[in-house]
């Protein structure tokens, strides 16, 4: 009786773990406090934010977001985000019109400025959202970037 139970549990354990691993996310979840991977599959901003556990971020002037009004080359649009909100933990970049909206997330340990500069692909003219997670909640700002040459051609 005991042996059967053990075998059953072992089998359950193996298949269960394999299934979860395949479903992706388990391993990263074990080592990271917040798993952002599911958000990268989202096709809409609302879905990405939901996957990150963010509901109704507040628009904030304390997020300084630099991006060009017109980008000639959507394959490399320079973006720069700085948050002066106290307790900023993460900055997320989301491009509304891209096939998958989530572009990048950056997390800042104590001692690192809530600042990041990078370059992203923008498939077509689109709003880019900079979402900031702080100890007090989530905030955002956005900028419209017009693209003359799409970013998906590489």
């Amino acid at each position, binding site marked *: 009786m005991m042996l059967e139970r053990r075998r059953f549990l072992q089998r359950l354990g193996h298949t269960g773990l394999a299934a979860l691993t395949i479903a992706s996310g388990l391993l990263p979840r074990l080592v990271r406090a917040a798993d952002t991977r599911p958000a990268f599959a989202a096709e809409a901003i609302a879905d990405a934010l939901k996957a990150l556990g963010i509901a109704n971020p507040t628009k904030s002037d304390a997020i300084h977001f630099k991006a060009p009004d017109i980008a000639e080359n959507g394959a490399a649009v320079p973006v720069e985000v700085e948050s002066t909100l106290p307790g900023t933990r993460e900055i997320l970049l989301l491009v509304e019109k891209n096939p998958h909206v989530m572009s990048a997330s950056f997390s800042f340990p104590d001692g690192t400025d809530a600042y990041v*500069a990078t370059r992203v692909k923008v498939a077509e003219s689109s709003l880019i959202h900079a979402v900031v997670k702080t100890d007090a909640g989530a905030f955002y700002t956005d900028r419209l970037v017009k693209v003359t040459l799409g970013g998906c051609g590489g």
Partner: protein
Amino acid sequence: MSDPMRIRAAVKGEKVEVKILMSHVMETGQRKDAEGAVVPAHYITKVTASCNGRDVLSADWGPSVSKNPYLSFRFKGGAKGDKLKVTWTDTAGDSRSDEVSIG
């Protein structure tokens, strides 16, 4: 194996300013080649940076970070001569680490 990253880390006042240029195709998986076949996705998913072993930045990326990614950030508590190490991992399971002395 991939080309080394170009990393510049310099003390600016009480902070260290870091600028990184990585060498990576950042293929989205949406693009088709000349024969019309989909080019499989191949992009960096994770970037971490540490200064003398202390984490100073962690990033999760999707395929819409530009090819040959550029990344800049700033942190406190670093001094000239400290070691700044940057590591990326991609969808193919490859990873690369490069280290520079803060100047």
